[in-house]
């Protein structure tokens, strides 16, 4: 039997955007076990419900994560709106959908860049992020922020997108699509890139189900699970198919995410064409009383928002289960039996967002 050794990986490591620590138990070059430890960026955001009222919490929740900040804010708002029986105007729902899909676009492009960086393809990393920059500019034009948008409120949204702005965005996305095809073509067809991803990090459908994987991780193992199909915001009115793959490896996850990039562009186009006129926010009176579970599909997978209110302006409890937390067991499964050199790619394959996980 080969000699076992333990190699610490992280919390500071060139490939990690955020701190997570793994103890890798190696037999020669093969990982036999990985023991994770998190807790480096815990901020106690959930406890803030005791100090901030339910309206202020919108701004706290969107600071859980810098990438899916819009969806965090929206998920929380949806939960409180459901408790208070607030009917959100249709225009607000469509606007939320458009911002959600823009978030998905920029998150997946960010991930593609980080993946390229993980296998040392710096030029591809730059190109992915160059394209992402256009989405961030669109966010700044429409919401006033590039990372934190502050456009959600209980009952709707705070800012409207005029028709010419929407038209402009669709034009930008049309122009981007060709460049995106070029860039993603390299991820899908380049020999060097494929040699790092094909057959690496297999997560069998049984393992994915048993370990409760979510999002692209689950969909790349053949399960068509997507919370957008539950029809929150305006997703119920829009036409889209869940993208899945049966290959179960890193390449399949990359394929699913790239498919979702183009799907997001399509959804934005549909939403921009269908968006109705009208109010962007409904009036909200009183305080919430009750509890609700909201499930939204973030770029990384399904997120839960559990909100329990007691009739005062301070909530009893808010709990967020983020997709990275759900995907950690699946990641540990893929690490078992992997080559040590593949560990960075396997960690990135779940698109880890540690700040989300720790809140």
């Amino acid at each position, binding site marked *: 039997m080969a000699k076992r050794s333990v190699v610490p990986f992280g919390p500071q490591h060139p490939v990690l955007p955020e701190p997570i620590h793994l103890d890798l138990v190696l037999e020669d070059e093969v990982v036999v076990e990985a023991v994770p430890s998190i807790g480096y960026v815990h901020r106690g955001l959930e406890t803030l419900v005791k100090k901030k009222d339910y309206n202020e919490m919108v701004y706290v929740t969107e600071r859980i994560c810098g990438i899916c900040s819009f969806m965090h804010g929206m998920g929380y708002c949806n939960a409180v709106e459901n408790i208070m029986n607030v009917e959100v105007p249709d225009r607000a729902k469509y606007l939320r959908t458009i911002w959600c899909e823009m978030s998905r676009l920029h998150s997946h492009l960010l991930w593609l860049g980080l993946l390229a960086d993980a296998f040392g393809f710096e030029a591809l990393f730059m190109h992915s992020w160059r394209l992402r920059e256009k989405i961030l500019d669109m966010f700044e034009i429409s919401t006033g922020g590039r990372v934190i948008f502050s456009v959600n409120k209980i009952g709707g949204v*705070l800012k409207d997108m005029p028709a010419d702005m929407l038209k402009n965005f669709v034009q930008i996305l049309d122009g981007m699509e060709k460049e995106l095809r070029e860039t993603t073509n*390299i991820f899908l067809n*380049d020999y060097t890139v494929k040699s790092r991803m094909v057959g690496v990090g297999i997560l069998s459908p049984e393992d994915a189900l048993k370990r409760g994987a979510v999002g692209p991780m689950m969909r790349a193992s053949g399960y068509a699970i997507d919370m957008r199909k539950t029809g929150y915001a305006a997703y119920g009115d829009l036409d889209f198919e869940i993208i899945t793959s049966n290959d179960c490896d890193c390449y399949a996850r990359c394929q699913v995410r790239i498919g979702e990039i183009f799907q997001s562009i399509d959804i934005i186009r549909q939403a921009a064409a269908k968006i109705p006129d009208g109010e962007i926010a409904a009036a909200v009176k009183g305080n919430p009383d009750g509890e609700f579970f909201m499930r939204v599909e973030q770029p990384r997978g399904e997120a839960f928002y559990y909100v329990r209110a007691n009739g005062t302006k301070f909530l009893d409890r808010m709990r967020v289960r983020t997709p990275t937390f759900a995907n950690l067991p699946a990641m540990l499964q893929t690490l078992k039996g992997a080559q040590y050199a593949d560990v960075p790619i396997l960690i990135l394959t779940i698109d880890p967002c540690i700040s989300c996980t720790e809140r």
Partner: protein
Amino acid sequence: MSSIMSFTGMALKNLFSKPATIQYPEQPKVYPERTRGHVEINIDDCIFCGMCMRNCPPRAIKVDRASGTWEIMRFDCVQCGYCVNGCPKKCLSIVPGYTEPQMKKEADRFVKPPAPKAEKPAEQKQAGGQKNA
């Protein structure tokens, strides 16, 4: 296998195209109209109701009705715009231009002068300039 050279086309194109970045600082960044840079107050219209102070999630605003002062800690402010939405007199606004670095963490103080005195009351502003970009 053509897949080995798949990046060559893009690389060549980039060699002869304009840079994707702007030449900062020679060419300044133009912010869109909606950019949330910093909070501004039109102190003449302020009635010192304190709504902004109560709404502010990071508690960056202090309003004192007795002395007629409105203060904001620029470094605590997260530019969420909640104060602007809740202002009954609409005298608050959020405008482009980020807070500049300062040596000391001081509050920006605005004082409303007594009403009948001057024709156009000058606003008193102590800490460093937040100019629109």
